[in-house]
């Protein structure tokens, strides 16, 4: 289904409004869609926040080509920098997915469909030799999957080099969270657990601290392999040299806010069963004056702690409605490739 409409280039408005406009124009008010556009290089890039929306509008010359796919049928492989090599074939890519058969693609879903599993944080305040890693346990059954041991490390002191006892990662369980992040390795020295130095603490003490913090574990390590350190000064501004537009700035602030909320609330999830009824999460006690308002806030906050699990799957879509895009072409997602595709988590 193709639609053509105009926008005020100088006042494009918010992405939310634009998204609403698209749904309105296509008469699909309850359908979640992915929005993409082709940039000047011919890459198919997503529009999912104010920033890339504005970027898209400002680069439109004069026509802004927008592609809309129904979310659950979306072919994520169409996005990305790779598309530059198929400059002329963007449409073909979208419209004739069988082209991909020759060259199977890794399917990468949209940022909002991810939930963070780990992150390197506080890069700006830590020495380059250290790495602060946050592991997000959430409700998954995936084990944290690592072991720690006693050891000794060499420190520079005013008296010269000194051997001091330290705590080290001794083993990573294959398939565990720690291993899958790639941010922790055997023989990395553990320096801090959730901001508390481990020096002077026994192995058992550090074990207890880590387990107590296991729902939101932040470990500062000195990696045994110092070659992959983040070099602060030479950090490039974009992830892609060729196409600055292709970076996804939206994802970063999202994650930041998520774990800021997670910080406080991560273990505030005790459950109560009253009179053998349904289990409920125990709310935080509030003063009566502000009770209702803050209670609802709590709910909201809480919802966002379960970030990543977007309610997209909950909406029921009549299949006959089909996928929608501005310049319409019925899009049959390649189910096989979706199933085979490796799910990469960040």
């Amino acid at each position: 289904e193709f639609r053509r409409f105009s926008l005020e280039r100088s006042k494009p408005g918010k992405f939310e409004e634009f998204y609403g406009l698209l749904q309105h124009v296509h008469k699909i008010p309850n359908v979640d869609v992915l929005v993409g556009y082709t940039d000047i290089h011919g890459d198919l890039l997503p529009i999912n926040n104010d920033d890339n929306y504005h970027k898209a509008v400002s680069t439109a010359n004069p026509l802004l080509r927008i592609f809309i796919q129904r979310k659950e049928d979306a072919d994520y492989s169409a996005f990305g920098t790779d598309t530059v090599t198929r400059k002329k074939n963007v449409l073909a890519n979208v419209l004739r997915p069988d082209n991909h058969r020759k060259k199977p693609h890794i399917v990468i879903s949209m940022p909002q469909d991810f939930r963070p599993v780990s992150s390197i944080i506080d890069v700006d305040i830590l020495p380059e030799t250290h790495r602060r890693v946050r592991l997000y346990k959430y409700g998954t059954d995936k084990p944290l999957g690592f072991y720690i041991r006693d050891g000794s490390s060499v420190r520079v002191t005013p008296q010269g080099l000194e051997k001091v006892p330290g705590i080290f990662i001794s083993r990573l369980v294959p398939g565990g969270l720690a291993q899958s992040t790639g941010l922790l390795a055997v023989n990395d020295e553990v320096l801090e657990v959730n901001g508390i130095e481990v020096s002077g603490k026994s192995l058992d003490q550090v074990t207890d601290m880590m387990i107590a913090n296991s729902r939101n574990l932040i470990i500062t390590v000195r990696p045994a392999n110092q070659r992959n350190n983040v070099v602060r000064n030479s950090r490039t501004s974009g992830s892609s040299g060729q196409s600055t537009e292709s970076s996804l700035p939206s994802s970063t602030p999202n994650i930041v806010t998520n774990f800021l909320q997670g910080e406080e609330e991560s273990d505030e999830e005790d459950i109560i069963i009253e009179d053998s009824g349904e289990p409920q999460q125990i709310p935080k006690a509030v003063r009566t004056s502000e009770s209702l308002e803050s209670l609802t806030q709590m709910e909201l906050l809480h919802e966002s702690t379960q970030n990543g699990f977007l309610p997209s799957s909950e909406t029921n879509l009549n299949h006959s409605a089909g996928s929608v895009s501005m310049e319409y072409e019925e899009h049959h997602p390649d189910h096989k490739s979706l199933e085979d595709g490796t799910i990469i988590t960040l």
Partner: protein
Amino acid sequence: FSLYQTVEHGFPHQPSALGYSPFLRLMAIGTRSGAIKLYGAPGVEFMGLHEENNTVMQIHFIPDQCQLVTLLDDNSLHLWSLKQHSGASELQEERRFTLKGPPGSPPSATQITAVLPHSSRDVLYLGTESGSVFVAELPSFRVLEDRTVPSEAVLQRVPDDYCNRRSCELVEALREHPKNPNLILIGYSRGLIVLWDLQNSQVTHHFLGSQQLENLYWQRDGSKFISCHYDGSYTQWPVSNDNRQPEPLENLVPYGPFPCKAISKIYWQTTKNGLPYIIFQGGMPRASYGDRHSISVIHGSQQTAFDFTSRVIDFFIIFSSEPTAEFDDPSAMVVLAEEELVVIDLKSAGWPAVQAPYLASLHCSAITCSHHVSNIPLKLWERIISAGSKQNVHYSNMPWPIDGGTNLAPDPPQRDLLLTGHEDGTVRFWDASGVCLHLLYKLSTVRVFLTDADPNDNMNTLGEDEWPPLRKVGTFDPYSDDPRLGIQKIYLCKYSGYLAVAGTAGQVLVMELNDEDAEHVVDHAEADLLQDQEGYRWKGHEKLKTRDGPVRFEAGFQPFVLVQCQPPAVVTSLALHSEWKLVAFGTSHGFGLFDHQQKRLVFVKCTLHPSDQLALEGPLSRVKSLKKSLRQSFRRIRRSRVSSRKRRGAGGNTSEVQEANAKFDQDALQEMELAPVQRKIEARSAEDSFTGFVRTLYFADTFLRDSSRHCPSLWAGTNGGTVYAFCLRVPPAERRMDEPVRAEQAKEIQLMHRAPVVGILVLDGRSTPLPEPLEVAHDLSKSPDMQGSHQLLVVSEEQLKVFTLPKVSSKLKLKLTALEGCRVRKVTVANFGSCKTNEYSENDLAVLTNLGDIQIISLPFLKLQIRYPCIRKEDVSGIASCVFTKYGQGFYLISPSEFERFSLSTKWLVEPQCIVDVPELTSNNHVNNRSGVENATRKS
């Protein structure tokens, strides 16, 4: 707040030496860890610790002084003094000294074997392994070399044939002549004894003993002495003024004629009636009684061999020390055995034991739990004492004979009871009000059950003609007939006198205090904690069999109902509400509530997670890793045995086997190096084992359902971080027997961090913990505030959390483990009073962590007030044994037999405060006898 470790209660662990000063009437005990403890009158206690932590070998008081000398196993001598300091005496180490020989001499030349503090108080005579006796000046420890008694000088006039046979060898004993301080008796291990004249530096008499010497003892008048020997004999020698070669007067093997063990120490005590007391250690027939630890007392036709429960370290006799007295007239024998102190009254007929006011053997059966009750009402206190006194009829009435020093400590402000549960099924009630932990009453639960050992066959009754005349003394008995009898939990209500006791095999006994003996049937109920669960099989121990029919109980606490948990797993938590007449109990499978008024089970709740199979299999299968490691170590032993046998066998194979062995060792070593100690980091899940283990139970009258009506409730916390709350309906007193108690589950809280719940507490409207049952009824507490909203405090091993009630919402929390890596082991509410004003006091939480720290945390805001390191973190049993009192004190075991007492409150300390006055030196012949020895000392 502050932390004071004030006094050690109980019996010193591994005692190694004993000393006594008849002048100060103080006893000193040294231990293998280098501690030295002085005891006098009850409450008079001093403690010192050698820096070296070496075993104390010998303790000698300096005659007529407040000083003593200790010899350690590193051959160092230490001089200690009791000094008065701001009105109280203190024990201080003054000086240390190690005897040095001439350059090039072997170490044995200066290895001290015997110490004699001379009555002149200026010198020490030090016998050594080489046979020389050195003289050291006091208090400087300067060696007076010109006065050394070399073994060559001693041997000069010894007949050649005797001398050839045996050289002197080491000095076994040094004894000063009781009347003439210029003469000392030197006994050498090979049997030679000489009397040495200090003034003329020469031997006056040689006594040619033919047996290996153990010890010497002078008779009071100095005309004779006794030597005792390795072969179990003792010999009397006369000391005359002529120069004849002395011949033994009498040589006796008291338990002959078959080979006997050595007599290691002997006393010969004279009495007015002419019959001496001969008291000696050992000498038992080697073959049949060689394993006994005995001391024999012979007085005329009376002879008893006291048979001790553990090795005898040393003993002494208390006798008339007045120099003017003509006879010894012994009054008591004090025996330090390895595990207990026994005092025998030698004046009363039958030589009964004297009950000691201190040094109680806490561990006569291993301590399995303890419970402290503060501020016991006088009435209950008296009833317990009266029950206890009926048990102690066989003790002597003699006042405690070691009565030196004066106790200055004020009387304790309240009566405190410490209850210890033991492995043999007994509960001991200790007076823990003051410095002396004193046994008041002993309760045994064994009578309720049928056990293999029938208490009727008394091991002590011996026939008339039994030889040797052994008599068991002492209470130390570490061998439990049946480990299932072990006491695990105790709860005493001090107002009603109800006592609940729970044990290893799931038995819960409720008792009442009765002042008379009684015979009655113990009601019996079963609580099946696995009601709705199927397919589980208990693989642990069976429940204890009960006695049918009425059972006779002595006066004291008498059980009237037994609740048996099924499966019969260890009872892990217990709570008693004496007002509602309810008792709650929990095991690793669940918990139950029993109405002990109507003797009816109210409800049971299974807390098992469906996947938790392990909890059902019983205690043995839980220690899988232990089992595995045991198996491995056995395998290793077997392997090494096999290889050593092989080694002995074929000669040709030896090198091969050795090689293989070496390789095996190397491999094992490498294996150890490759697999260092590591810890798994994993979030706890609901599937972890033993989540159902009930850790704590708590009764509270609070708002459970709505904020308008409060009701009785029962709270339970499990190992998996679950809290259950049950709403109870207890009928009013007038219909208490007619209507059943009802219970209904009202809430279940799952802590997401899933750490074990170790404490539950409800705070009233004023944020004060709810009072104990009956506390308000006895006017000892303000009634709780029921106007303001109540709060629930849940203490897990990792966090403290406050929730609102009745709607449970989380209000406050304090994370301990996440921040410090420590875990809560014990928690209690303690009342701290201001030491400045009597008006102010506050309630705080006292928390002991697995690191041995004690933290004080404010209520209700959970602010950490202060932290003290208290117990070493390696001391797991110390941490596990810790018990807090309601007023900020506490106890923990520093050894199997000793409680350390500590106080977190500055308001009230229980610590020894005593003074030892130097008695006036009366007309003392020692003074008159100041000899040339002393003058010589002065000159030099």
